């Protein structure tokens, strides 16, 4: 473990950039903290408790191009009508996919343990058979610098959610703040290499053990399918379906596939992956326009069921890391802790 002062610690992003990483740092601007790609004039914010976006935005970017293809469809001169190729004849398209893997290694600087755990969850989802090649390519060689939280804000509940510790493999360098010092504990080989480039003001023989942050509330989470169905869902009458809960959630990974056409060359099509939200109407829409999740309440309970019982069953870990973003950024102030939390004692 080494001890460095703030100025030296802030050199770490440029050290990582020098090692060939695309570095993502928390920046402050307009009253919110968000993760952005590092540039030498980034306003790095190390005092943040919550960020409006998450590493997910870089591992599964919105509008990511999956591949290009050439369609053999041409513009004809017959009258325009909506038609589906399978009804009126074979699909008039041959697909010659052009795929280029995303390059570069990612480094996340000063993420919190809850973010590290969100990456762990995304790994379980995206790398389980069959592995998502785009995610895998971005994930390979990733480095994380985890900055411990001292105290959560009103919405944090990583201790009840059991995700306050950055698990092995999801933390290359663990950092704790102690007064004006930053205690830097490299954990992996890549982490040691990066930390060795810092000019250590003091060496320390001890090593850092994870420490749970102070929480403002303590409760236990009870979220089986039946419990979520029976629990009260308060405040939903002021939900405007803005989907802020799913946009700011670090573990929401649902996506939609979209074909982007081009007017100058109509046969050249780009297939992209867009973010999707279970709070949106088209999330549960099937052919013919039937929707399964019609009401706000259905969508709300669906979101919680996906986070807790469904994720436990499918991936062996909860999809909620207790960051509290869905509560903090909800314009209507809907608090899911009232649905899944039980007061202790």
């Amino acid at each position, binding site marked *: 473990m080494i001890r460095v002062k703030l100025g030296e610690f802030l050199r770490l992003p440029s050290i990582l950039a020098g090692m060939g990483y695309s570095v993502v740092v928390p920046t402050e601007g307009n009253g919110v903290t968000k993760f952005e790609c590092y540039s030498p004039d980034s306003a790095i914010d190390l005092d943040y408790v919550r960020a409006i976006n998450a590493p997910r935005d870089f591992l599964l970017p919105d509008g990511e191009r999956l591949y290009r293809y050439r369609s053999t469809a041409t513009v004809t001169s017959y009258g325009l009508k909506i038609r589906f*190729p399978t009804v009126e004849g074979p699909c008039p398209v041959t697909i010659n996919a052009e795929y280029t893997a995303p390059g570069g290694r990612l480094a996340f600087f000063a993420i919190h343990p809850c973010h590290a755990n969100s990456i762990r969850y995304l790994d379980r989802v995206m790398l389980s058979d069959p592995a998502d090649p785009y995610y895998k390519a971005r994930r390979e060689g990733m480095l994380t610098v985890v900055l411990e939280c001292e105290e959560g804000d009103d919405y944090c509940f990583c201790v009840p959610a059991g995700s306050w510790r950055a698990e092995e493999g999801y933390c290359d360098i663990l950092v704790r703040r102690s007064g004006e010092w930053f205690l830097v504990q490299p954990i992996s080989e890549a982490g040691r290499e990066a930390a060795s480039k810092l000019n250590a003001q003091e060496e320390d023989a001890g090593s850092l053990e994870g420490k749970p942050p102070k929480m403002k509330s303590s409760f236990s989470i009870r979220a089986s399918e039946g419990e979520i169905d029976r629990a009260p869902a308060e405040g939903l009458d002021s939900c405007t379906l*803005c989907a802020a809960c799913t946009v700011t959630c670090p573990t929401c990974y649902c996506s939609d596939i979209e074909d*982007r*056409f081009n007017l100058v060359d109509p046969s050249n099509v780009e297939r992209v992956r867009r973010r999707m939200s279970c709070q949106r109407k088209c999330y549960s829409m099937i052919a013919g326009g039937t929707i399964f999740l019609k009401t706000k309440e259905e969508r709300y309970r669906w979101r919680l069921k996906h986070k807790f019982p469904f994720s436990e069953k499918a991936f062996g870990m909860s999809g909620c890391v207790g960051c509290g973003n869905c509560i903090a950024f909800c314009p*209507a102030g809907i608090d899911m802790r009232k649905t899944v939390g039980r007061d202790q004692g």
Partner: protein
Amino acid sequence: MKAAFYSLTSCEGCLTTLITNLGPNLEALWRIFDIDYFKLVREPVGGEKVPRVDIAFVEGAVVTNLDRKRISQIRANSSFVVALGTCASCGNIAYSASRGVDLKRRRLREIEVFEAEPLSSHVNVDFELSGCPVSAEEFTEALLRLLNGIEPKQPDFSVCYECKMRGNRCLLEVGKACLGPLAMGGCGAACPSVGAPCYSCRGPAVEADLTAYLKTIRRHGIPEERALSAVRAFTGKKILGLLKDGKG
């Protein structure tokens, strides 16, 4: 394939936007389509006569007796009618501005003025493309989906969705009467991203809920009246319909 671009009572901002913002796509548009009528670009082929086309784009609200005649002629001669812009899809500012005014005295020779209405109040509209002005990208996307035989789609999310995606601070939190939760998205949250509240220029979102919105702004201590006056000013028929439902 034939296409035509018509203008009813409006500022012609939508068609002007297409001309200025389509860039290289404008040329492609002329290559792909036979465009018999696009008055802003060139003299119409058959004069003022409404040509028979496969796809008609109509901007503007239906205000005068000439508009009323025109829109039914357009409908009769076009296989697919696209309402271009918020005037055509919701009525926009003209809708609320023409209510409660003595329109009989505004008559100009043979032109009679009526209360402004969106196209859908008079004819069957196949697709509505919102925006004040309409976005060139959305226009191209809808056009290309039509060319490829896919139904064009309207955004099913509100402005908030894209605003949060861009990582903006919520304007309701700082006490601004932003209409984001009510407004149809697709603009990339252009106004809230620079700190200006959304005034819902694209009309209401598909699942807009006025009662929930009013509850939400009350929670932030924003006076209801401020939000409602913005609702009344810009968003025309559809959102005023919500207002009626919301108020019982």
